[in-house]
């Protein structure tokens, strides 16, 4: 089969590799119909995340048709059309039973690496480094899906791939980020990063009762998309974000701040420049300018919710601000399986059409150009979907 593989920093390739096979009784093999490039794939692409190797198959946003199931998978059969959550969960451990699927205790076959890095072993993720299990990803014609009796969600034929593909990651991720804010009716929410996750966080915040949502970014097309979703937009290159938000909220600050940027924040302030220098020297992977700004501007007693990916240590982190303002911090990989069904219902009811975020449709062979374009934010690129057929 053809698959997108990591070839080194800022380089991916499309290789012919062996087709995946059932390895465990709870596995399924899916013939991929659509797969997307996620913003967090760009962290891998840029070589920012440790323990990725040349030849690793990328991709964790994908859907398709079941072609084979292991003997313990009773809820799926060949021919079923499914969306697959990006994180891999056994469904049986303490964490899965509490619907904390991204904390699954059993799905990572290489737990030592993440144990050393984070204190406890993380769950497995598709196409996201050997620390997260080393699983082959879904930017391929076929993919093996472990614990297929837990993760994949059957989707109706009446809904196109474009409408349901993002149940695999960015829609639940944006939704969980907003849900983590415990939004009260009429609350003001600020979202850093108007990329795909930020866009879904904006719309989810309104669904959960926010009165005003601010979107902070620098790319015109992303800010336009955010405005179309009802957000008030801030171009951080044109205005001071802290001053603007404080003025807009009568000196209180937003009740909730969502960092949908993560580890590759841009900025021209001293902390942002120092982060960039440290990242270039490989002494600190995370560039946390957006997170620092969110903590500074957040209302006292408010919530900072972090769906953006961080992987390591952050220098000059303003934790004291958080303490003295009594902030709540919520973060982590999305418990995707918890949200997929209810968000599918919203799509079926027409409450949201997730395809609004797609800017480019490519083929798998276009992946190298697609990664390059997405990383450089060229051609108004907000979201790339690769279609197989």
């Amino acid at each position, binding site marked *: 089969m053809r698959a997108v593989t990591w070839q080194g920093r800022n380089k991916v390739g499309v290789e012919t590799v062996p087709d995946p096979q059932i390895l*465990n009784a*709870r596995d399924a093999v899916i013939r991929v119909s659509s797969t997307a490039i996620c913003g967090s794939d760009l962290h891998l692409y840029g070589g920012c995340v440790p323990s990725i190797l040349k030849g690793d198959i990328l991709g964790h946003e994908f859907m398709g048709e079941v072609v084979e199931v292991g003997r313990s998978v009773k809820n799926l059969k060949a021919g079923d059309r499914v969306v697959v959550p990006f994180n891999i969960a056994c469904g049986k451990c303490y964490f899965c039973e509490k619907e904390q699927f991204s904390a699954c205790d059993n799905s990572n076959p290489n737990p030592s690496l993440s144990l050393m890095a984070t204190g406890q072993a993380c769950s497995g993720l598709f196409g996201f480094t050997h620390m997260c299990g080393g699983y082959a990803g879904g930017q391929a014609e076929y993919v093996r899906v472990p614990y297929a009796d837990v993760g994949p969600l059957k989707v109706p034929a009446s809904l196109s791939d474009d409408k349901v593909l993002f149940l695999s990651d960015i829609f639940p991720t944006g939704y969980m980020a907003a849900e983590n804010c415990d939004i009260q009716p009429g609350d003001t929410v600020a979202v850093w990063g108007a990329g795909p996750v930020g866009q879904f966080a904006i719309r989810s915040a309104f669904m959960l009762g926010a009165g005003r949502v601010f979107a902070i970014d620098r790319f015109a097309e992303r800010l336009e998309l955010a405005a179309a979703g009802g957000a008030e937009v801030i171009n951080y290159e044109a205005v001071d974000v802290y001053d603007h938000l404080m003025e807009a909220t009568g000196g209180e600050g937003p009740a909730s701040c969502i960092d949908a940027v993560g580890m590759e924040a841009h900025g021209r302030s001293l902390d942002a420049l120092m982060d960039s220098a440290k990242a270039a020297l490989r002494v600190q992977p995370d560039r946390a300018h957006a997170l620092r700004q969110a903590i500074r501007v957040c209302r006292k007693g408010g919530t900072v919710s972090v769906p953006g990916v961080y992987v390591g240590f952050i220098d000059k982190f303003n934790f004291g601000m958080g303490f003295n303002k009594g902030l709540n911090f919520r973060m982590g990989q999305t418990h995707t399986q918890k949200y997929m069904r209810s968000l599918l219902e919203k799509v079926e009811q027409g409450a949201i059409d997730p395809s609004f975020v797609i800017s480019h449709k490519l083929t798998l062979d276009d992946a190298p150009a697609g990664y390059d374009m997405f990383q450089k934010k060229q051609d108004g690129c907000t979201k790339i979907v690769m279609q197989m057929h």
Partner: protein
Amino acid sequence: MQKNISSVERGISVALGALSLLPVFRRRKGANLVLRAASAAIGAGFLGRGLTGHCVVAQRLGSDTSDAAKSMQRQDRAIVVNKAKEEVETLFELGGAPIDKRSLTSLRLSTAVDGKRTRIESKDGEHDWLVLRQLKAFLEAGEVPTVEGQSHGERSLLGKILVDEEDGEGAARVESGETKNRAHLNGAAQEVHA
């Protein structure tokens, strides 16, 4: 090849290996061939030690300072399984656990502090943390997770070393000890949970 030295030792070995190889490639008239050969041998030895993380001397001495070994040492060699003690005992009686049946006597089972789950402890340290994790996965999820034998693209030399690729099957394994006997483990899991 099982890693048995730490990341720091590996780095030092690679540096020493590179330094030792310098005289081999230096063009100098009348250079001593014996000295060059010795440098090449020492350099290759250090480089091999650093790149593979495996040291034959440490192996002979029974020493293992690898990062994985250290992480295991930090564990208390106990796990908590998300099942009641009676359920765990029943699963053990059914057989198929990824631990030799004779070794089951070396495990101490007790009800966990929450009164619901089961704490399993390796009494004499016979079973390391990774084996206990495999046991936990088997008892809870019915199978031991694996990526052994899955598809991947062309690896670099470093990648081949790091994932311990064996048998040309394209197996991606970061820690060689973690997935050993997988076929046995998963076969057993499938029987019990069928």
